């Protein structure tokens, strides 16, 4: 029962992007198309699950004083693997995401889950926590990028949905990222207030 709880909390109640406002850097930078958002979300989730498992397993032997460097080393190893895998199997996505794949190393959600959850809990709950947070972040990325892609490029996952002259290019430029994320955050707060 509590395992399901660990999983679902990451999706709405503690959604990393909309409720904790973590990981905003990739959320602003790569959400120009649903494909990028989804790709980033999946890569992120894979790293998060692996790092949560590793850190949770080693939580009793990691010295407390140097735990942050240890986390970073662990996360960096997994990011390197994902980076190589994506380079080999999804070259187009790899080029589109560019520097933001290696930058998963310093993603504050992964470091945050390591510190706040995996370091204090057994392996199985840590996996569910990572899954929940990963799915929550992926959904958030897809939502942001769907808004931006539809308004800014007139397509959804590459499929045209708006007439050719309609899309406002601004929405896939950096300002569009800030505007979309701001509006969605405000909307989420409003919804949260209503349900609370």
């Amino acid at each position, binding site marked *: 029962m509590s395992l399901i709880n660990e999983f679902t909390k990451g999706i709405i109640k503690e959604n990393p992007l909309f409720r904790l406002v973590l990981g905003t850097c990739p959320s602003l930078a790569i959400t120009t198309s649903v494909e990028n958002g989804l790709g980033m979300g999946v890569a992120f989730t894979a790293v998060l699950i692996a790092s949560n498992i590793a850190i949770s397993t080693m939580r009793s032997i990691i010295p407390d004083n140097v735990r942050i460097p240890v986390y970073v080393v662990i996360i960096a190893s997994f990011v390197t693997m994902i980076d190589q895998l994506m380079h080999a199997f999804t070259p187009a996505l790899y080029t589109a995401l560019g520097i933001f794949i290696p930058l998963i190393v310093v993603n504050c959600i992964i470091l945050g889950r390591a510190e706040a959850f995996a370091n204090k809990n057994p392996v199985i709950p840590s996996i569910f926590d990572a899954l929940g947070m990963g799915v929550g972040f992926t959904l958030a990325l897809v939502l942001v990028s769907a808004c931006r892609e539809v308004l800014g490029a007139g397509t959804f996952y590459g499929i045209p949905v708006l007439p050719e*002259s309609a*899309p*406002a*290019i*601004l*929405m896939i*430029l950096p*300002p569009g990222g800030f*505007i979309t994320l*701001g*509006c969605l955050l*405000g909307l989420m707060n409003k919804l949260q207030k209503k349900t609370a």
Partner: protein
Amino acid sequence: MTTSNDLLVVTSSPHVHSPDSVPNAMRDVLIALCPALIAGLYFFRLPALLVILSCVASAYIAEIVCLKVMKKAPTGEGSAIITGLLLAFCVPPHLPVWMAALGSIFSIVIAKHLFGGLGQNIFNPALIGRAFLLASFPVAMTSWSRPLDGVTTATPLGIMKEATGQALPSLGELFLGSVSGSIGETSAIAVLLGGAYLLYRGHIDWRIPGTFLGTVFVLMAIAGAIKGQGLWYPFFHLSAGGLFLGAFFMATDWVTSPVTKRGRVLFGIGCGLLVVLIRLKGGYPEGVAYSILLMNVVTPLIDRYTRSRVFGGVKSHA
């Protein structure tokens, strides 16, 4: 005298009553915009009328909807009409009507109400609308046409920037407004008339347009002298593009310009400097909109550093 049965209400001082109110001021701005409106309609005819109507109507509707949704008291919807009108004045006359409406809605919803509504916005809403349109629809926003006959042509500043060899319009044409450009900015004389009215009514401070235009004039005179163009050059830059409209109606926006006198001087000089930089060195032919938006950003900072000292107080370390 009064038939009302209300008891006499005694409030604490001040009791001074002034006819100045937001609706009154907005009405005066609307009056001041009339000459440019007439000039724009005369030169660009039906397309301009459609763009203006769509901007004003959508700004007004967006304002009403925002006030309703955010449950705010209706204060001066007139300001939305002015925002819509100013936006229409700085877009090309042949802009598709739905784009104009979209820019207008963006101005009101994003740049005004999401920042807290009238009096709270950091940026001039009309200019944000223009910046949004220019970034979103670069082709439609830079397709200019000649007044009266609507033949596609470059703006005077565009001709100067691209050096395409097309003949530059004379200063007289620029002054009257029979050149290609945005709906409300081509006619220098019409905008000047409106600006003079606002100055006369005391709604705007001469310091901002004065220092703004002065800076552009002096710097352009120097640039002209270096290029060997003579005195014609600074006058050309003064009356071409949206400089007068920006200096009198947009840089002086009460909300987004400094409140201190010294601050206004700094603000005007900053705007002028940026316009000259963008026009001479930047990638765009015209830089009035961006120069004002950039100075909007530093307005709180300017206000803070030019705050006057309380009489008898010690100099504060800001």
